[in-house]
């Protein structure tokens, strides 16, 4: 799938309602702490993120939260796709393995399901499902 086709699929993502965005915003610290804890507990973390990259990984998770919050408030499919491609490229160039995205997005999905209300999870999960489903496309496009 090329970038334009991917943007077309992103345009179909259900955008979360304000109640869900507010809940995600209110719980960012808890969500971030759970996500970091879950990722740090992964066996062979060094192989997944590269050596000495824990701080960079945590920065990425914080940036992820800020970006998703921003994109949910002002949805723009092009910005979403361009930014994820940039993130994949930059982090892989800094030693993160392509498998990191699989572990990371799976963990995000679990953490938001465990920490958000049923309503908010239902509203926000489509964007995570879309990112998770397109890991292979982003990996190719980031090369």
């Amino acid at each position: 799938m090329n970038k334009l086709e991917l943007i077309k699929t992103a345009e179909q993502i259900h955008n979360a309602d304000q109640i869900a965005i507010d809940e995600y915003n209110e719980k960012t610290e808890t969500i971030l702490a759970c996500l970091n804890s879950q990722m740090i507990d992964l066996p062979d973390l060094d192989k997944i993120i590269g050596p000495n990259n824990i701080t960079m990984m945590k920065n990425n998770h914080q940036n992820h939260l800020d970006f998703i919050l921003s994109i949910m408030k002002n949805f723009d499919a092009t910005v979403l796709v361009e930014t994820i491609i940039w993130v994949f490229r930059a982090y892989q160039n800094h030693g993160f393995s392509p498998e990191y995205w699989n572990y990371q997005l799976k963990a995000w999905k679990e953490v938001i399901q465990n920490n958000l209300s049923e309503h908010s999870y239902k509203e926000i999960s489509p964007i995570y499902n879309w990112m998770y489903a397109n890991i292979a496309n982003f990996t190719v496009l980031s090369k």
Partner: protein
Amino acid sequence: MNISQESYKLFLASLLAGDRQQCYNIVNTHWENENSLLNLYEELLKKAMYEIGNLWEVNQISVAAEHLASGIIESILNDLQTKLKNSPNSNNRILSGCVENEYHQIGIKMISDVFEKNGWKSYFLGANIPTKELLQFAKIIQPQLFALSLSIYSHLPDLEEMIIQIRSVFPQIKIVVGGQAFRHGGVKTIEKYENIVLLKDTYQTEEFIKTFDL
């Protein structure tokens, strides 16, 4: 006058080596040869900083090298500012700065100085300016224009909040916005608000200043 590729490459290499004096020498040579300020901004300083960002992205340089380069560029901007005509020749005042949580101030510093070059009294508040503080300062200086910068797309909600707050106190005053965040999007969000102008670079900024009408 165009900046040669050779000169640009030497400037970039000097930046990466942390050779502040060589960077100054290159800029001063261009300045003395009457290269325009905007040319220096766009074809040398901005181009080099974008390349520095690309080099970080591909892991060719460290964050430390990036910060070193930013520090040199900022000192060059301050040096260039002293070469500008310092006495304002109009009663226009501009208040500029980055939105809350935004730390990339080089671009908005250039914009602020372009206004100064064109005779405006320019008040540059720098990075991460709390909206409340911006408004309090604006009440004192009563600007004719605000200039706000956004480099990171994630801070778009902060920019929106700042625009809303400015509008609540200064409903008629024009706001110009710009920054790297708008390269891929964000325009639709800004277009929701009246009296907002998006400026993509310093050339466009100077054109805007020349046609500015209160």
